[in-house]
């Protein structure tokens, strides 16, 4: 039952990021539409676009890290027995956890320094640091999810779904 709640939590994180993708796209599209057809400029649309982009990426990285859909080199992995594959998965996830942990620590510093510098958006003069803070919470979620992934890989590997290769259509 616990794993069901955990899966819902992970899905929710991914949905939050997905919603932000839609919001960024809508922001850019509506801005262009209003500018070309009505000569109207949405205040801070540029700043909102880039700040929302930051939020969507950190929340997206959280889900991607848990699902194991990062871009990896599978040359060795594809040619070793499942037992070694699992060991390699655990090692790679531990490294990932370490890197994201350091990143989360340094990003907190960035959020604090941005607040102290009183950085504001261009038009509406809104403080930027709350946006950074929301992005940073996504990074905290990444740490939690990678920790869950590590736990599951070691003790409950059956709960880890195989990443879908079709989820990497970048190339």
């Amino acid at each position: 039952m616990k794993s069901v709640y955990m899966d819902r939590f992970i899905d929710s994180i991914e949905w939050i990021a997905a919603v932000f993708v839609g919001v960024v796209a809508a922001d850019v599209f509506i801005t262009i539409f209003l500018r070309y057809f009505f000569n109207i400029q949405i205040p801070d649309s540029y700043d909102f676009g880039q700040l929302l982009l930051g939020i969507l990426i950190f929340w997206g990285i959280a889900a991607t890290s848990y699902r194991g859909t990062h871009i990896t080199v599978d040359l060795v992995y594809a040619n070793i027995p499942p037992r070694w594959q699992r060991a390699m998965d655990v090692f790679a996830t531990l490294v990932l956890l370490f890197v994201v942990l350091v990143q989360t620590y340094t990003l907190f510093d960035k959020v604090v320094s941005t607040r102290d510098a009183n950085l504001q958006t261009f038009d509406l003069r809104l403080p930027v640091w709350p946006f950074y803070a929301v992005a940073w919470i996504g990074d905290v979620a990444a740490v939690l999810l990678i920790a869950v992934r590590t736990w599951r890989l070691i003790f409950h590997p059956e709960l880890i779904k195989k990443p879908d290769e079709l989820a990497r259509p970048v190339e």
Partner: protein
Amino acid sequence: MSTDAVAIIGFLSLFVLMLLRVPVGMAMGLVGVTGFGYLTSSAPALKIVGHTTMRTVTDFNFAVIPLFLLMGAFATTSGMSRELFRAANAFLGHLRGGLGIATIAACGGFAAICGSSVATAATFSKVAYPEMRRFGYPQSFATGVIAAGGTLGIMIPPSTVFAIYGLITEQDVGKLFIAGILPGILAISMYMITITIIGYARPGFLPAGQRAPLSEKLSALKDIWATLLLFAFVIGGLYGGLFTATEAAGAGAGGAFLIGIARRKLSGPDILRSLLETTRTTAAVFTILIGALLFGYFLTITQTPQKVTAFLTGLGIGAYGVLTLIMLMYLVLGCLMDALAMIILTVPIIFPVIKELGFDPIWFGVIIVMTVELGLIHPPVGMNIFVIKSVIEDVKISTIFYGVMPFIITDLIRLVILIAFPIIALFLPSRM
């Protein structure tokens, strides 16, 4: 320890971590920051992590990646590929190997609204493969055509790989997109010629279909207005200077969404699925981009690009000799690792060499995309091959590789043509 020794140890550690399946971006970031910290001190190294990461993810220019991905996802889910294939088949299906030729034409058309080779290959595995098999096309040929046609996704604009190359090297993404148009048309033509040659060299191997009546041709043409409109809107706006690359991507995503809704081809679940796919891919790409930028500090402090440039230009083999070496390196690396990872890892080192040798950065972008295209279909780690295998389960990997061989030869010839005649890539950007 000297900076050279640190650089060598850094690169070795990076390759070991990548071979141990640490995500490429994370491995680059870890090695980059550790190496930078070793040569300076830990405080500035930690400072650049927070600063570079936040700067990268909040750079509006980088929004071009998720927005074009979203446009491609909407185009894929709303079934535009099927309409393109139907139209291409109505006009070309009667030729010998006509369904193969139609597949290439439809892949080219789909590439004009979707910047992903893997998505193109996956889509046409579902759309074109059953038709080709139904008409008796060999499994190797059918899958080979789809694998090769899929690579058009990243050459014909919009293209995610062009966007990433442009962002890494600080080149105009719009110009890069436009530079891909003529090489993309060349690729379509050469693939079609290859199929025709196969058809005539092996009579009976590739059947010809029946000629479609005029009414069917007109009806099929009527269905592809959405694709044409979207391509004209996005690339026309970019070429005409109406949009920046990021705005074009936003306009494309919004346009694909509205067209899908207006034609009732996009349901609620389709929209959510498109957003989810875009999120996953965007996160994977940005992880690698952040890693590459952090690794860039390590490259700068160890002066690796300058040293590699001095070494290669000092070989005395001329500009094209060095270029040949670089291409050979890419072909070998393409056998070992993911094509995108290869590009993001090597371009920051190779790009200064290219500039020093006097080659055009936009033209080199096209050459780089060509090498990625080859990497997507050549053994042993061709991503398109594995994607096709994941969709068509009853085909062997070796069968797909066998089928794609003629197209690999075609691609190598095309690479030589593009190197010999840079004007093919540079003509349209020079008119912007």
